[in-house]
């Protein structure tokens, strides 16, 4: 039996009168690539925000590798929740490499004093992080962009950098928020390859995506959400062939 990485138990969240997560329970194992699909406003991104700690659930619990996951964003990132953002949220005044170097979970120069002292051990840690960052960039074929200011890159490459930065975290749980929106051509293939590799390396990957063929190609399973609830979990084919769900999806998308 593969190890369970992420478990949500009866997670609820409402904003004012609007229920954005309605009693969500979900389990994710190492090697899973779970697709989250559903119409806009179904609560897919909200679910990511609840897991990564941007929002606190009203009730319910979230476990990472059996440990209760609590606290603000940075605590959960350190526990091993790595995520990307639909709109990348790159650090726009910084280079690609600098963006990557903010990502490692262990961050020796965290304190200002330590950073000022610039000791040998700090320099070695920096060099190691740099190597790892370059390695991730090479896997994406983006090593040559390391010194570029991120906002000067084409959109598709920025999207990849968003994922690369999250990979620096090296956590067991990887949440990808619409990684394919606006990504085409070779970047599309790179993204697919990276997601497959990360799952094969034992991570539990969860993807919010509107691109159904991407989900079909990659995901072992998918979950259909609507109005903050999980309507069905199953194979991607089952979900896309369900007439009821298709109507919900495309009916809502048309409106």
């Amino acid at each position, binding site marked *: 039996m593969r190890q369970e990485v992420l478990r949500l138990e009866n997670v609820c969240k409402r*904003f*004012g*009168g*609007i229920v*954005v997560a309605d009693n969500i329970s979900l389990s994710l194992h190492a090697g899973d690539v779970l697709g989250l699909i559903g119409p806009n*406003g179904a609560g897919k*991104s*909200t679910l990511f*925000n609840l897991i990564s700690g*941007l*929002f606190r659930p009203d009730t319910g619990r979230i476990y990472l590798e059996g440990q209760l996951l609590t606290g603000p964003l940075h605590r959960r990132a350190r526990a091993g929740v790595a995520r990307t*953002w*639909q*709109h990348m*949220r790159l650090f726009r005044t910084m280079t690609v490499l600098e963006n990557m170097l903010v990502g490692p979970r262990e961050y020796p120069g965290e304190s200002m004093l330590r950073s000022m002292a610039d000791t040998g051990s700090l320099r070695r840690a920096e060099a190691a992080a740099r190597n790892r960052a370059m390695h991730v960039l090479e896997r994406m074929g983006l090593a040559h962009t390391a010194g570029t200011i991120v906002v000067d890159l084409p959109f598709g490459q920025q999207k990849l950098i968003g994922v690369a930065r999250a990979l620096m975290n090296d956590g067991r749980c990887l949440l990808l928020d619409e990684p394919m929106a606006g990504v085409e051509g070779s970047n599309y293939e790179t993204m697919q390859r990276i997601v497959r590799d990360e799952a094969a390396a034992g991570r539990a990957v969860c993807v919010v995506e509107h691109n159904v063929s991407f989900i079909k190609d990659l995901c072992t399973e998918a979950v259909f959400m609507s109005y903050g609830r999980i309507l069905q979990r199953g194979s991607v084919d089952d979900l896309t062939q369900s007439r009821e769900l298709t109507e919900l999806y495309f009916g809502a998308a048309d409106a």
Partner: protein
Amino acid sequence: MTDPVILLQILWTGIAMSSYFVLFTVAFALTLKVEKLWNFAQAGLMGIAFYTMFWSLNAANWPVWAGISASVILTAGVTIGVEIWAIDVLRRRHSSGLIFFIFTLIFSQFVAFLLTLLFGTEPETIFPSVMSPVRIVGGIAISDWDLQAVGLTLGMLIALYLLIRFTRDGQFMLAVADNEKLAGIYGISARRVYILSGVISAVLIVAGIWLYGTRAGVTPDVPVGLILTAVIATLIGGLGRVFSAAIVAVGLALLQSFSILFISSKWQALLLYGVLFCALLLFPRGIPAWRWRRVRPVAKSAATAQAGG
């Protein structure tokens, strides 16, 4: 202390004194609402408005109406000039809020230094005497200045309300305040609206500094203090709520007036900053009770913005 006549007297004087405070606050809040601009340059405009009246009535011996007209024309002219040649340039560059802050503050300082050079640092008043005839009504002293101040302020507020509510230009102002891009799609020129709101603010500022300058001495440094009180009232009133900011301005003036019963007058200003600081910490988005009708949409949009981000 608890004599009702004394309390009523403090209440009345406080309301009368709040008049120019209200006018400055409305001018500041209107610019903030329509232009999304913390316009500290209005301190400079106050200085220009005051010294124009002071000079034309005292040095040039113009009639009162001519002095006031000159002040309105010059203040509005400078407002339009600043809008076109400075604010608009910064806006087109997508400058950060910090740059706008620096520009408007430095502009006011520039004006203050210029006025110091021209008029010195002695406190001046528009008329040589700041006394005005007083009548006693039910034991309360009511001066002509009080009546003029309350009347002028109420008149201005009503005129502004009617303008916003019932004229096309007023509706355009609301549309631009709400969403300038959307308003642009409907053919409303944001620039025209900005200039209009600037001119309205200029008129309010002239009226306010007229009241202040017929009652107390003005030096080139006074306007900065006046603008800060307007900022405080605007913040506590809730952004984008011009008339509730005006009500807060009256409330703050009354708080200061009544505080003389409890604390020495030199601590009154500290009270104001204390109120500001606490209000900011407790209600970083304005006092919630005054925006209850909008609570729902606000919560929703905040949620979706964060979720989408």
